[in-house]
């Protein structure tokens, strides 16, 4: 298959909005169904980076999402919303893979599926260092391994040089500038850029960009099963200290003394 100069796949996860997720410490119930989903925060950084590359060297960028929330109408709508968001930022089109079986898929299964979408069609895969809800960062690494493409994580800067990409990656002990020949898979950090806020008319137009929705059939069995989700017990007193500045300082110190921690 012929590909244009630079085709980028941006992985967008339909992530649970953990800020709005409700958990009940007493009953241990986690209200996952009730919580909304959205595009992962750092996915937006990946999308932004793709748009910047496009602006420099041209080519096309596709948002790719495998939704693992089943096939309910609500989740489908949210998935499309999330994709619309990155399309509005400037990605060209989107692939949404979704199906009932998605709920059991682990990163192994998702990577196998997405690798087939990516292989032969894209030269660069951009992803987030981790997702809002699970923060494992495993998916892009697995996709790279499945495709046998080099993988670089924790990218804080990217620059395209012909068929090479120069990446600054930030590890705990060193900051390195590395160069790889494309194709490659790169996971970016939240600090790599500031995702643009799309214009309203871009959001409207994003609704009309091509969205290729496909059914999900798992290519293999998962390697992981989630047996249980537990709610960690953290008891906080939630006391608000009142009064003016002086009083509040005094009361706080008193409280800490009574706690026996000062």
């Amino acid at each position, binding site marked *: 298959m012929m590909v244009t100069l630079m085709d980028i796949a941006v992985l967008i996860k339909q992530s649970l909005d953990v800020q709005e997720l409700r958990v009940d410490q007493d009953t241990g119930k986690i209200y996952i169904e009730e919580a909304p989903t959205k595009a992962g925060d750092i996915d937006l950084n990946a999308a932004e980076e793709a748009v910047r590359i496009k602006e420099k060297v041209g080519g096309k960028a596709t948002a790719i999402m495998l939704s693992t929330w089943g096939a309910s109408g609500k989740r489908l709508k949210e998935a499309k919303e999330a994709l619309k968001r990155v399309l509005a930022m400037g990605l060209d089109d989107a692939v949404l893979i979704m199906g009932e079986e998605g709920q059991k898929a682990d990163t192994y299964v998702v990577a196998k599926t997405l690798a087939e979408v990516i292989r032969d069609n894209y030269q660069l895969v951009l992803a987030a260092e981790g997702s809002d809800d699970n923060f494992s960062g495993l998916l892009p*690494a697995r996709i*790279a391994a499945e495709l046998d493409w*080099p993988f670089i994580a924790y990218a804080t800067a990217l620059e395209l040089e012909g068929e090479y990409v120069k990446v600054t990656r930030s*590890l705990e002990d060193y900051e390195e500038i*590395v160069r790889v020949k494309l194709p490659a898979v790169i996971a970016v950090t939240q600090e790599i850029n500031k995702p643009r806020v799309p214009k309203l008319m871009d959001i409207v137009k994003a609704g009309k960009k091509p969205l290729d929705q496909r059914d999900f059939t798992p290519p293999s069995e998962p390697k992981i099963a989630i047996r249980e989700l537990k709610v960690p017990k953290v008891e906080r007193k939630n006391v608000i200290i009142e009064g003016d500045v002086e009083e509040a300082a005094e009361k706080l110190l008193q409280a800490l003394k009574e706690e026996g921690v*000062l």
Partner: protein
Amino acid sequence: MKVLAYGDVLDLALELVAAGRGISDNVVLLVAGDQEEKIQGLKGPNEVLLCKDVKSYDQESLVELITSIARDFDAILLPNDRRGRELVGVIAHKIGGSAATDVSSLRLENDVILIERITLGGKAIAVEELSLPAVMTIQKGRFKPLEDIEPEIREIKAPKIERRIEVLEKKEKPRVGVPLDKAEIVIAVGRGFKKKEDLKLAYELAEILGGVVGATRPLAADLKWMEEEVWIGISGVRVAPKVLVVVGASGQQQFSAGIMDSKIVVAVNNDSSAPIFEHADYGVVMDLYQFLPALIKKLKEAKGA
């Protein structure tokens, strides 16, 4: 059941060995690079594999090295830092294994490894069944190094690799070694501080209380007002002090996941609807620029008296 542990920092690697012991009597430690001297007299693993010709910072070679010996092992344990996390997915996939990050406990059950890890932005703990072979990164500070076994040391050769990642430049990061994860008193600062210089309020408070200063991710990683090693949260350090004073941080879930083990949490924020107050024992809804000086003054008076 045979476990391989690898970590570039030896202290951490020994925690991994201890973690491995929970599921196996045979834990092998892989040591890369120039560390022959350091491993003399080291205790804990059943065996040490020393590969001198792979540098401990050479991620690409490490993938190949670990993958090349992986078939002998049922589980591979790596540290849960960026180096470990960059390796774990690639290695797992290459050997057709399961993978997990940020693992806080593990045990063997029939032919799966049962692990616990924090998920949903810190709001839940997932109990996951990992099929074998399994590759995982282990949370720091969860396992105490063992000092029982004196291992044999065996040298191994590095596999030949075809390099695809060329390192053009390397800058060492300054490390100040703030003992955040062990500190008894921590002041955590966020974007509520308007300028870098203003952080001196936090440092002053920390000094009086005998604590250390940590930060939110944007303050450290984006604004770079502090070293990256001091950011607290799901992608940074977890703290467990007796008192944590969070100042000018909104308390988004990814930050708050890192403070769950604190005994007492105090929050200072001028927005009464900031989520940090849900994670706090004592909340002060005030401008930090007014409240911190008053608090510092009171503490000084108390000390003087």
